């Protein structure tokens, strides 16, 4: 029992700690949930790869506050993201937008996978054909048949 209690305590301790201060949070739980969802997708501009929801940087706190202020004023989620994007560019989006500059980034991996799949498929087809014999090889011409018969016949009739 004691072990279980200790384990539960340990689990509670390793629960992810968030950077959002209780006094930052909005009283309106729906708005707060939207703010958290937006913050999780916004990249902190002074940390290399951390969302502002996770970051303790002052600028991250300022940006979280700006998001909450705009939501309270009635902005939609898209408007809040557009506000940040107008000021910090695509840099603030942890999920890069899909456009001509990022097309290769988004399509590259599936493209390579498709190419590899195609190469594998062709290869397996070739080895399968090689193993079972191609249809063309199964059909012998009359001359070939005659030569094969004579060779086999020679062999059979060869003296011991």
């Amino acid at each position, binding site marked *: 029992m004691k072990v279980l209690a200790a384990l539960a305590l340990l689990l509670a301790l390793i629960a992810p700690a968030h950077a959002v201060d209780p006094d930052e949070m909005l009283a309106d739980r729906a708005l707060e949930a939207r703010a958290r969802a937006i913050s999780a997708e916004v990249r902190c*501009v*002074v940390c*290399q790869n951390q969302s502002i929801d996770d970051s303790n940087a*002052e*600028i991250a*706190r*300022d*940006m979280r*506050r*700006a998001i909450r202020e705009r939501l309270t004023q009635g902005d939609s989620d898209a408007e809040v993201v557009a506000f940040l*994007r*107008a*000021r*910090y*560019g695509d*840099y603030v989006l942890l999920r890069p937008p899909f456009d001509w500059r990022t097309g290769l980034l988004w399509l590259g991996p599936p493209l390579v996978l498709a190419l590899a799949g195609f*190469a594998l498929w*062709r*290869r397996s087809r070739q080895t399968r054909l090689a193993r079972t014999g191609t249809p063309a090889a199964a059909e012998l011409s009359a001359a070939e048949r005659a030569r094969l018969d004579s060779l086999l016949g020679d062999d059979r009739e060869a003296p011991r």
Partner: protein
Amino acid sequence: MSNRWLFVLPLLMLVIMAGFFAYALTQNRNPGDIGAPLVGHKAPVIELAPLHEGGARLTSSDWQGKVTVVNFFASWCAPCLVEHPLFLRLKSEGVRLHGINYRNKPEEAKAWLARLGDPYERIGVDPEGKAGVEFGISGVPETLVIDRAGIVRLHLRRPITADDVNGTILPMVRELSK
């Protein structure tokens, strides 16, 4: 047929990667560069309390009608100290210069300016970094040039240098003032 091509594949990948690395190393490519998305767009609307008692508030109308340089600074920021003499020079060149005191104790900012000289026409205080987010600031110092119509023309996310002043800022201010 296709097997022979497979031998070229590693070499091809090496060439592509080497090409990318060469590009990344020689073209000053910086993935940490946020860029300046505000350039070409209207400067944000702000209204900041003055740093000096009895001073005027710093508002968006303070860059209407004349080309203005706006500088985010703080007394705790070492690079601000380095670039400070250049702002004194901009002032002596007759450039309209406003300061935004970013996340700074007012008495410390005032002492800093008293020691080094105050080049700013108006200084707004931004104790909580709200104006910072409005301007898309990621730290201090950052400097913007705003034209007569209130459009941001330049946004430097670093301390300005003498080269910036001579080669970019002064020519730009003159050009936009024509």
